[in-house]
């Protein structure tokens, strides 16, 4: 998997490179719009990350030109949060997703994976941890053979926990991603939902999958 990151801020670029490389992507960095456009046109990338604020040629223009040159690689644009216009314009010009600064690396990785898969047709349809299976298409959740019915929000919460197996997700992160609250409404909201999820998934089971990590966050682990 080869990615192009067009980002002029060296620190952000190297963060993206580091984070994505760790996930097995091969990452090229371009630091201005002209160079980025040139590379994106000549090299077949699996996905392209474009910052909107770029020297020489801005990100939206790069995106527009790429699409007019029939470059179909999925594009994620990086905007400043709150700039609704940029976001909408980006999506209209053919961007597949957007991230607002300051973004979360975990989120970027997860979304780029999804983008790449969407294109290769290899859509992720299942998450499986231990005997817990989550089907993203049919929205079925099975614990062994037991079918579990979840509310929409419970489903999204579980999805975010299973997306990053073995990894601790903090309450704040969950609030941001599952509830999309851009401020802190208190963490017992997450706790209450986790309790509900536990009751449905772990009650009566020998192996408890949803684990509290030292009062900081949660993770789904099969051990």
């Amino acid at each position, binding site marked *: 998997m080869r990615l192009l990151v067009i980002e002029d*801020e060296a*620190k*952000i670029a190297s*963060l*993206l490179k*580091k*984070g994505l490389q*760790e996930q097995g992507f091969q990452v090229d960095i371009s630091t201005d719009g002209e160079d980025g456009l040139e590379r994106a046109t000549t090299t077949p990338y699996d996905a392209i990350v474009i910052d909107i604020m770029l020297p020489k040629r801005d990100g939206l223009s790069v995106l527009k030109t790429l699409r007019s040159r029939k470059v179909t690689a999925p594009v994620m644009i990086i905007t*400043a*949060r*709150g*700039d*609704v*216009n940029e976001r909408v314009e980006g999506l209209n010009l053919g961007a597949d997703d957007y991230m607002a*600064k*300051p*973004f*979360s*690396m*975990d989120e970027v990785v997860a979304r780029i994976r999804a983008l790449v898969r969407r294109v290769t047709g290899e859509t992720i349809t299942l998450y499986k941890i231990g005997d817990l299976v989550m089907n993203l298409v049919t929205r079925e959740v099975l614990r062994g053979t037991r079918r579990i*019915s*979840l*509310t*929409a*929000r*419970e489903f999204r919460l579980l999805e975010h926990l299973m997306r*990053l197996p*073995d*990894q*601790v997700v*903090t*309450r*704040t*992160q969950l609030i*941001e991603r599952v*509830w*999309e*609250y*851009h*401020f*802190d*409404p*208190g963490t*017992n*909201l997450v706790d*209450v*939902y986790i309790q*509900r999820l536990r009751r449905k998934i772990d009650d009566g089971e020998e192996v408890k999958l949803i684990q509290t*990590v*030292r009062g*900081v*966050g949660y993770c789904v682990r099969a051990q």
Partner: protein
Amino acid sequence: MKRWPLRTRLVWWTVLVGGLSVALFGGIVAQSLKTKLRHHLDTTLRSEGESVFAGVSELGHAMNWNDPAEVARLFSAVVSLYSFEIEQPPGSLVYRSRALGNLTLPVGEDGAAFSGTIGGTDPARILQLRSETMRLRVAVDLSPFNEWEKSMWWTYAIILPLTLAFLAGGARWLYATALKPVDDIVAAAEHITAERLEQRLPVSGNRDEIAHLTTVLNRMIDRLQQSFEQARRFSADASHELKTPLTIIRGELEIALRSGEIPHGVERTMLDLLDETGRLIHIVEGLLLLSQADAGKFPVGTEVVALTELIEELAEDVEILGDRLEIGVELRLAHSVMVKGSPMFLRQLVLNLFDNAIKYNRQSGTIRCELTTVAGVAVFRIANTGEEIPAAQRDRVFDRFFRVESSRARMNAGVGGHGLGLSIAREIVRAHGGSLTLESSEPGWIVFQFTIPLCEFGATAPREIARKNDDALG
């Protein structure tokens, strides 16, 4: 007098000063006319008297007072205005003008005119001349003169109020015209607020004091605008500049945590740091949003948002959030209330208000929400039980980083918040064309209310409200 507007005071002063001037002028003119006239009367009185006196003295023979022809000759040069009494010798009356009839002239000192009366009634000016053999009194009736004087005063009495009325009217018009630019400045100045500092006062074409004042004021607004913009830019730039380092801190923490090579003791710390970074990001985003609002560039969307459903959905979370304090939530929401805007910001708005209602609530308290529509406007009223906000702090609740001092809020400090919630809420409502206010209400309740204009099709779009139960207890 100080309470009156300037133009009224000016009119009064003009009338006062003008009236005094006219009265003074009139009085002086009348008085000097009167003095002149009296002097003239005395002079003619003397010349008439002396001519008759001389006529009688120079006659050479004793005057025959019974001969009408001789008498007529004596008085031929005398105007009929003057009346005479002649005594020959003094003390023995030989002639009295026919006009006097049987009225007598008073006896006075010789040689100088004096004021007296004819027959004790009609005022007159009298002169008495005397020689060894003769005493003559000549009098002029002052009645016509007094009549004239009286009519002059009457004229003044009529003209003065008329003049004053004319003066008042003229002054009113003049000051209204002169102060019109001031009114224009006032009207324009009222529209210049911190958010609209790019406006200027209208400068009239005249090169007068007011134009000068306006120019000076405009220059002052220039400087104000500059410093406001500097502050605003600083806040926006600072928030913007913080984004990159925050992204890197968060990213690096996430990458490190994911690597699985972090010792347990350190992992905990790093997770805490990650959460704190998240909070910092919330604050920075809040500040950026506020500075955008200050610059009138709040990024409000134009989507149609179903406010009823949005509130219902959030209320479910609020019930959970309020659980710890056993706070009950009561909802009375009108169906199908649609507004135009940004769902993300409207969620934040409602959640900020809910958050506040929990934070400043009491144990086992209540949150009461009501959504209604009044005259094309959605009205959301949220009330919570709790310590009332002290009067002195009411105006400040929407200030940035302001927190109401209350024991409850400190107890609930764990609920979170950074003191920007209500400022952001107010800006969100403003950006949606409405207003957010802290209402005064019955004791023991804190009530906030916002109004947002309904989406134009909101009222005519009947939609079944399917209450989302998927997030309810299941």
